[in-house]
Every structure is written in structure tokens, then in C-alpha cells.
């Protein structure tokens, strides 16, 4: 064997160290499997390096400044300045701490870490090409493989990412200076979260969206307070306009959009951020060698054990399908590792929560009223507006509501939708209620601390039962 082409063997080969992959690897290590984790880029994947974490860090920092700068009503007078370099340094520090933590946790759980690009090279073999010149490659024999290669941003025709004028969320999260103006293509959660960040930094933000609603996938009344909040921040949201082209102008660029009717509009700006969705990464894997093929959307199909069509190959995280969310990937990673270890694990959860970290936030889990009806339930629905919540009033954030959806007959909680302060946290309780088969009465009978926002969950349950105290019953 030549130097640089060493061969090793492992029980479990995990490809990709994002939330799906690193959780799979750590869990496999805990279960005393010999596990090797290959990552080509950075521990923590998209989520820790270019997604969830840096975006939330910038949302916090710009939020702290914006909140204090707009609190005259509370008697607070401040004119905060944000030093972009300082903020980015702080954000990078947070990322480093977490990615370093992931690496340490992998090691502590006995995971072998390998840097490089892995591709399949037969039914039980992968080849890992190490980066850099002359670093060669490595051949790894495995019993089981867990594919966790994640996703990348979708490009739209004419808007190839150049990292300069046309950027993806990745570059947007690491800009060195505040752009004067920014067009964001796509009013999904990533576009809206970043619109808030840049608006609070003082950028003139325009969001263009092909569809005729923002935050598609979330109910209208959940999206509305977010859209209103954006407009209060000065963000212009243009619906029904597809970005069709762009060109350099004297000192910036001009982005052209087109409506269904062919009407064109031009937007002058410094940069354009394209955030129209993400697509699974499978092209680096040489899938044929293992006998797998992605489905028509590019995903690897899996069963309720996270297993692909090939018995010893699992797929987890964004590459394994919607919803492309970190916590869904973590769950799949855990289950895949446990199944490999022979445990009776399965993806048998009832609901995957989702959050949008705008101001106000959105948090959802389980079924909406319409989905419950479609599934054959006769839904009982309860709602509590935050403007009736003592805690919300004392925080100055009263937009939004908590809604809880249940089966009228049995009372079983089926879903929850929250828009408002801390929605991303409050949704956890409804998620637990759904998984446990709790009833509205159970939630209503549980004493909630006063004064908290979580009382609104309690109150929504009471409202669904027809006897809320702090709001009128519908």
C-alpha cells in the first residue's frame, strides 16, 4: 500500500459532521460501536458554521441594539451603534466555541475523526480524499454507513453566487461592512430572518418573493405579525415578483423582477442575497457505487428507521428530506445510530416543531386546524392573544398569540401555532403535550408560573375548553 492510501475499517462510517452526522456519530460511540466521522469542511456543518447559530447570534446582537434604541416608551434613551467587525468577531467566537465543543464531544465518545471528502467505492467501502496537495486518500471499509451530507443553497438562473454581488446566506452572515441596500430574493424563513438583521443594522432592505405570500407554509395569521414587524423596520416586501436578472450599475447593481403578467421592476442595491431554498447534497458521494439513487427532489429516501433502500446504508438530516431542520436531522442521526446498534428505535415521533426567529418569532408544532380537519378530526381550537398576557405587556412585546388545536371529542392536543415573544421556546410545551397524548384538560390543569408567557399556552387550552379566564371565550 502506498503512503497516503491507508486502509482502515469501521463499524459505522458517518459522512458529514452537521447536526445529523455528529449526533449519529456520538450516539454510535456511546453505544460502543467503532465509528468514523468524515467531514470535508468544518465540524457542526451548515447549522453551526453557516446557519442556525451565526444567524441567531446576529439576530440577538442586532435585536439588543434595536430594542434599546426604540424603548423611549419605557423611559429608555439610547442611541446604540453597532460595530460590524466587533459583532462578527463575537459571532465567530460563538461558532468556534460550539464547533470546538462538537469536536471534543466526538472524541470523548470515542469517535474517529477524519478530514476529507468521502465517496462510496463499493458496497462496503468508501474513499476519503484528503484536502491539500499530496495528502492522498484513504480507503475505509465499513459495516454500516450513515449519509449526512446536508444541503446547499439553491441557485436561480442568472444569479450564480459570486460571494460579492450575489450572495447566499453563508456570505451574508459574514459581511465585513453593513451594506447600504440589499435585495433579498425569497421571503422564506431564512430571507425573513436576515431581512430583520440587516434592517436593524440600517440597511435599506427589499424582499422580493415570487409567490404571493411571505413565509409560505405558515398560516396567514402567523405570518402577518412578522410581515407587519418587518414593515415597521422599513423592510419593503414585494410579493408576486420573481427575480429575473441583475446587472452592474455605476456603484452597485440593479436587480430586475418580473410578475406573472410580465411586469418588470428594477431595484438598485449594493448586493443581492438569494435565499430561495436549499437542495440536498448527494453529488459528492458517488452513490452508484453503493447502488443508491436520489429521488426526483434529490433526497435519499428512507424508512422509519432512517434506512435507505440499501440495507446497511442510512441517511439523516437535510439529505434525507423535509423538513430540512437541524433538530429533525439530530433525531434521525440518533435513531440511525441506535438501529445500527440493534436497538428498537424508530422515527415514530408525532411532530417536528419549527421556528422562525424574526420579531415576533413564530413557533409551530403538529397540526393546524385545517390539517386536523383534513385528517378527519373535528378540531377544538383555543387562542390567547399576547396583548392579554401580563408578562407580554411587561416585556413591551404584545403582538401575536398562542393557538392550540385539539381533537374536540377526546381532547387530545394535535398541534400548536405561536407567533409572538419567545414563540420558539413556548412551542416546546405543546410539543411535549402532543407526544404524550395529553389532553386540553391536562394542559389547562397544569399550574403555570405567573407572570410568564407560558401562561398563554395554558390560557389557549382553557379557551379551547370554553373557559379561559383572561380572555373571552369564543
Amino acid at each position: 500500500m502506498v503512503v497516503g492510501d491507508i486502509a482502515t475499517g469501521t463499524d459505522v462510517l458517518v459522512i458529514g459532521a452537521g447536526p445529523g452526522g455528529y449526533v449519529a456519530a456520538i450516539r454510535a460511540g456511546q453505544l460502543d460501536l467503532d465509528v468514523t466521522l468524515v467531514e470535508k469542511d468544518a465540524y457542526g456543518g451548515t447549522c453551526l458554521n453557516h446557519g442556525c447559530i451565526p444567524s441567531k447570534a446576529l439576530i440577538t446582537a442586532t435585536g439588543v441594539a434595536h430594542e434599546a434604541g426604540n424603548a423611549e416608551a419605557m423611559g429608555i434613551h439610547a442611541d446604540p451603534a453597532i460595530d460590524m467587525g466587533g459583532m462578527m468577531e463575537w459571532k465567530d467566537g460563538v461558532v468556534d466555541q460550539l464547533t470546538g465543543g462538537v469536536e471534543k464531544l466526538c472524541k470523548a465518545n470515542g469517535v474517529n475523526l477524519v478530514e476529507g471528502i468521502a465517496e462510496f467505492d463499493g458496497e462496503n467501502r468508501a474513499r476519503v480524499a484528503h484536502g491539500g496537495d499530496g495528502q492522498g486518500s484513504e480507503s475505509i471499509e465499513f459495516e454500516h454507513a450513515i449519509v449526512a451530507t446536508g444541503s446547499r443553497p439553491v441557485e436561480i438562473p442568472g444569479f450564480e453566487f459570486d460571494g460579492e454581488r450575489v450572495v447566499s446566506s453563508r456570505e451574508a452572515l459574514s459581511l465585513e461592512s453593513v451594506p447600504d441596500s440589499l435585495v433579498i430574493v425569497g421571503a422564506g424563513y431564512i430571507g425573513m430572518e436576515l431581512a430583520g438583521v440587516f434592517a436593524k443594522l440600517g440597511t435599506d432592505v427589499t424582499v422580493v418573493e415570487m409567490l404571493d405570500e411571505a413565509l409560505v407554509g405558515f398560516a396567514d395569521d402567523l405570518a402577518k405579525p412578522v410581515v407587519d414587524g418587518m414593515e415597521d423596520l422599513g423592510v419593503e416586501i414585494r410579493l408576486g415578483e420573481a427575480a429575473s436578472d441583475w446587472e452592474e450599475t455605476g456603484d452597485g447593481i440593479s436587480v430586475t423582477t418580473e410578475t406573472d403578467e410580465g411586469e418588470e421592476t428594477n431595484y438598485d442595491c449594493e448586493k443581492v442575497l438569494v435565499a430561495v431554498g436549499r437542495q440536498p447534497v448527494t453529488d459528492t458521494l458517488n452513490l452508484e457505487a453503493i447502488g443508491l439513487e436520489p429521488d426526483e427532489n434529490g433526497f435519499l429516501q428512507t424508512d422509519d428507521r432512517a434506512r435507505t433502500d440499501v440495507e446497511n446504508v442510512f441517511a439523516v438530516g437535510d439529505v434525507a428530506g423535509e423538513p430540512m431542520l437541524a433538530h429533525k436531522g439530530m433525531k434521525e442521526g440518533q435513531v440511525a445510530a441506535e438501529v445500527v446498534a440493534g436497538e428498537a428505535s424508530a422515527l415514530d415521533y408525532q411532530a417536528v416543531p419549527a421556528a422562525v426567529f424574526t420579531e415576533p418569532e413564530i413557533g409551530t408544532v403538529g397540526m393546524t386546524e385545517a390539517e386536523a380537519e383534513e385528517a378527519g378530526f373535528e378540531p377544538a381550537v383555543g387562542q390567547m392573544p399576547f396583548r392579554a398576557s401580563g408578562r407580554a405587556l411587561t416585556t413591551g412585546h404584545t403582538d401575536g398569540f398562542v393557538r392550540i388545536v385539539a381533537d374536540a371529542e377526546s381532547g387530545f392536543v394535535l398541534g400548536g401555532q405561536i407567533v409572538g415573544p419567545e414563540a420558539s421556546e413556548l412551542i416546546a410545551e405543546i410539543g411535549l403535550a402532543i407526544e404524550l397524548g395529553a389532553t386540553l384538560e391536562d394542559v389547562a390543569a397544569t399550574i403555570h408560573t405567573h407572570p410568564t408567557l407560558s401562561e398563554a399556552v395554558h390560557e389557549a387550552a382553557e379557551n379551547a375548553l370554553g373557559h379561559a379566564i383572561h380572555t373571552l371565550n369564543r
Partner: protein
Amino acid sequence: EDETETPAGRTFAPPNVRRLARELGVDISSVSGSGPSGRVTEGDVREAAEGGNEETKGPK
């Protein structure tokens, strides 16, 4: 014999089941649970109300 009585006489049952027990006049602490880890369920309470379950648990 399924022994579900816990230290301190604590009975594990969700609020809706506790309420049902009160409505049916069942002493929930004497019902043995068939739910996960011995959690008392609605069915257990209804059975006890019909005279089935309550006696099956020995005194402690």
C-alpha cells in the same frame, strides 16, 4: 401482580384521569396502572369504577 404504588403514596396519572376518578368516586391511589411505568390511565379508572381493578392491588 403489577405493583405500582410508589414511595410517598404518589400516584402517577394525568389530570384528566384524576378528574375522572373523582367523578366516578374511585380512589385513584388504589388503582393499579396499566400505562407506561405503571401510569394510571382512563381505562384503569373506568375498570376500577366497575369494580374490576381496585381490589386487585394488595394493601401496602
